């Protein structure tokens, strides 16, 4: 019998336990002597703490602050940067900054006590928006200019192009905050264990947590054992943010000597957790007399909030995707991450790329309007091809299948007919967007920084254990890895187990981020499995381990950001059709079609789940997920009754397709895909809406209220 292709769906290994309610998430865990915690946070955007007045604390209740960090410990969380403090000391930078942890045995008593804590501040003028941050409103609080980072990349000579240009088109594109809304809120637990601590966390990156918090108590990494608990969604929101829970919990556990659990309620999670960076992208595009795009000068600013955390890296990805899927001959892209007195922005599916990809797609439509040509025709002229140079003067290595994907979505959506039939301003519109996503860490980060390892263990009973730090958070990784290993070993998937990682047991395969797990860790596992297969009959109980190997011939300079920013990209095309109510301006989406190049799918059902979910999350970002900020109160939409995410009624079922384009360095030809599928639907939606109402749109989200403002 012929072997089935690897993409043939396998019932997810975690499905039955989750669907029948037996799977345990962090809030389902109980220890006999466990205490609970509630966070005490800054109530102001900027200032210094004058006094903290506590109500009388009953026996068994503790208030934990920076003062409980022992000598030799450091009050910092080590993320990409180490500027994020575990506890505020005198000054506070934003509403929601951690000041302390109230710990005790009874949760409702804790809630009452937290309400009775009174903190007085000496308030200062905050900077909330990108413009206020850049203007250093209230005086700079990071360096002399509020900039966490500021860099520029050049391809060719933009000044020369501007002197030759017939005209220069300026365009400003804005994107807002977005909340992750993983259905499981943030949660962690710290438990003392001899001279060590065990941290249970709903987290994407158990090794990140360990690295981040060990220094608080001056511990070695080995003394902080992190066990990932089954994670109810993450989307980047549990990449660095679990450190913000685990750090204070570790300090608390060292004081109270008992397990301490912290579970955010939804309002806390909405008001006091990291978000997607708001952005402002300004284009100055030089056009020749015949309409040829000569070059683009692009200025990208991300609102990073009060601490840098991983904003520099998020911004890099934004900058490296700033010209999208287009070969723009000459470009200059400047990126800045500006400090403001808002909750820190952090990782969110797409990691900086969705903002600039939305901007370039929308800008290309505006250029087409300016030139009086069809946007799709304009975009097609500049499609990147194999061998083309990128914005960082690197190269596209793979065959680019954008034309094939375009054909698929055009046929499926009946695009050619509808684009003619739905005249501008008719209330009906169809839009299209193209996008890509560089797989894995930028440049040589996998080789120089991450150095991932993966281990397999064949037990005496013939069961093979996958021992890696990569985590299942809903995306289907347990199933994907199980299939890759089983396929290589040529054994049944029922003989593979892949437990949630424990840092004291598994190999550090790097963080579960950057769409890297299948593509990078999957390949390392494939190699470990090959070695195991060769030794299969030799031993009954043995392990094999493999390490990341970087493909040759991809130069990258991390200081100048020149060279191959990514070795391979995923690619996508998405069509969205809408109808806009002429009275209420409510937008009904009537069709969604997509095609993606993800190399080869490891599991078609898992892949469909990612495509469907990523596209709906992207449409929510564009259509409805409005998140406003009040300088005195913080985020305005903090619960699920006012921060609106898509329901089953908001969007129709999707049609989707793939173009198989095997990637030689990925397991069975697979590339990353989890973020790619988020990157384009928002631009396709906005293209469709702007056609339906015959009005250019420069900002997302665009709920009906915003459309009304545009038109009235």
């Amino acid at each position, binding site marked *: 019998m012929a072997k089935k292709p690897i993409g043939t769906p396998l019932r997810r290994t975690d*499905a039955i336990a989750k669907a029948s*309610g037996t799977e345990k998430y962090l809030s389902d865990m109980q220890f006999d002597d466990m205490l609970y915690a509630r966070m005490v946070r800054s109530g102001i955007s900027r200032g210094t703490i004058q006094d903290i007045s506590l109500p009388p604390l009953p026996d068994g209740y503790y208030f934990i602050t920076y003062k409980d960090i022992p000598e030799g410990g450091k009050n910092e969380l080590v993320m990409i940067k180490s500027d994020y403090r575990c506890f505020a000391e005198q000054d506070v930078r934003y509403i929601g900054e951690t000041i302390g942890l109230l710990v005790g045995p009874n949760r409702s008593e804790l809630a009452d006590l937290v309400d009775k804590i009174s903190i007085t501040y000496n308030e200062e003028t905050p900077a909330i928006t990108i413009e206020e941050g850049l203007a250093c409103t209230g005086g700079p609080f990071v360096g002399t200019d509020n900039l966490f980072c500021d860099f520029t990349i050049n391809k060719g000579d933009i000044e020369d192009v501007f002197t030759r240009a017939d005209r220069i088109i300026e365009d400003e594109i804005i994107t807002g905050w977005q909340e992750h809304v993983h*259905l499981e809120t943030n949660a962690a637990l710290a438990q003392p264990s001899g001279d060590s601590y065990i941290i249970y966390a709903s987290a994407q990156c158990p090794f990140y947590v360990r690295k981040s918090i060990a220094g608080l108590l001056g511990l070695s990494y080995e003394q902080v054992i992190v066990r990932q608990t089954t994670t109810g*969604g993450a989307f980047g929101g549990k990449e660095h943010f679990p450190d913000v829970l685990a750090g204070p919990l570790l300090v608390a556990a060292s004081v109270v000597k008992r397990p301490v659990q912290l579970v955010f309620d939804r309002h806390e999670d909405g008001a006091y957790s990291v978000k997607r960076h708001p952005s402002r992208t300004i284009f100055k595009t030089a056009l020749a007399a015949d309409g040829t795009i000569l070059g683009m000068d692009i200025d990208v600013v991300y609102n990073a909030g009060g601490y840098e955390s991983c904003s520099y890296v998020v911004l890099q990805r934004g900058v490296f995707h700033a010209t999208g899927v287009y070969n723009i001959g000459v470009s200059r892209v400047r990126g800045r991450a500006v400090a403001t007195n808002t909750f820190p922005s952090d990782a969110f599916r797409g990691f900086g790329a969705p903002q600039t990809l939305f901007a370039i797609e929308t800008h290309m439509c505006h250029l087409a309007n300016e030139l009086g040509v069809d946007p799709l025709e304009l975009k097609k002229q500049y499609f990147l091809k194999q061998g083309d140079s990128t914005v960082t003067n690197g190269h596209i290595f793979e065959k680019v299948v954008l034309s094939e994907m375009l054909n698929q979505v055009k046929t499926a959506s009946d695009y050619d007919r509808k684009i003619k039939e739905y005249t501008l301003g008719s209330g009906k519109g169809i839009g299209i967007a193209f996008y890509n996503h560089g797989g894995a860490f930028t440049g040589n980060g996998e080789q120089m920084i991450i150095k991932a390892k993966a281990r397999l263990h064949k037990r005496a009973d013939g069961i093979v254990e996958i021992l890696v730090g990569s985590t299942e958070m809903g*995306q289907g990784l347990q199933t994907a890895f199980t299939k890759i290993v089983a396929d290589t070993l040529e054994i049944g998937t029922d003989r593979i187990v892949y437990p949630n990682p424990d840092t004291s047991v598994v190999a550090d395969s790097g963080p579960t981020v950057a769409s890297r797990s299948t593509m990078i860790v999957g390949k390392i596992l494939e190699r470990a499995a090959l070695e195991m297969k060769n030794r299969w009959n030799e031993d009954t109980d043995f392990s094999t381990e493999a390490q990341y190997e970087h493909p040759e011939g991809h130069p990258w300079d991390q200081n100048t950001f020149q060279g191959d920013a990514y070795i391979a990209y995923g690619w996508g095309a998405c069509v969205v059709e809408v109808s806009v109510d002429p009275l209420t301006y409510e937008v009904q989406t009537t069709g969604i079609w997509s095609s993606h190049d993800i190399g080869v799918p490891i599991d078609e059902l898992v892949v469909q789940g990612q495509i*469907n979910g990523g596209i709906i999350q992207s449409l929510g970002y564009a259509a409805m997920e409005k998140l406003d900020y009040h300088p005195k109160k913080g985020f305005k939409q903090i619960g699920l009754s006012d921060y609106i995410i898509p329901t*089953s009624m908001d969007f129709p079922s*999707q049609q989707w397709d793939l173009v198989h384009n095997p990637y030689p360095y990925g397991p069975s030809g697979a590339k990353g895909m989890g973020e790619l599928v988020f990157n384009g639907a928002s631009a396709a939606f906005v293209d469709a809406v702007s056609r339906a109402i015959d009005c250019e749109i420069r900002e997302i989200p665009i709920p009906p209220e915003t459309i009304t403002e545009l038109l009235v």
Partner: protein
Amino acid sequence: MIREIQFTLNGEVVALTCDPLKRLLDVLREDFGLTGTKEACGEGECGACSVLKDGKIITTCMVPMGAVHGCEIMTIEGLRETQRGRVIIEAFADGGAVQCGFCIPGMVIAAESLLEEHPEPTEEQIRLGISGNLCRCTGYDLIVESIRLAAQRGKGLW
């Protein structure tokens, strides 16, 4: 104010002395250890804490214990022991409905509730039936397909 409240929980008569304002959600999770019912929003918007009360779907974060006296409550722990529950759970697993899983026990309850009303549901009836249950992972398509699959496989059960 403490009251004794009697109700039927997954087919068994139980009694509990508690504040009648205590949420049914907390009673299920804390007093009975039934952690299959999840809390995700705490304000009746997301459906993760759904159970059946006298056969109707409710969000337990919004229901005080005083309103449960004399009622029949069925949670995911009860439903999974029934043939209907098993059909839905198997269809969810085969149909790719499950990703992070946090909304799924509530979604299974919603599926049972809508199949009770529409044994052969249209896509619109399914989408309406789960519209009170938020999922951030799937975009809903595979959940809708899985409920359709459950209806086919379980023909005659509802």
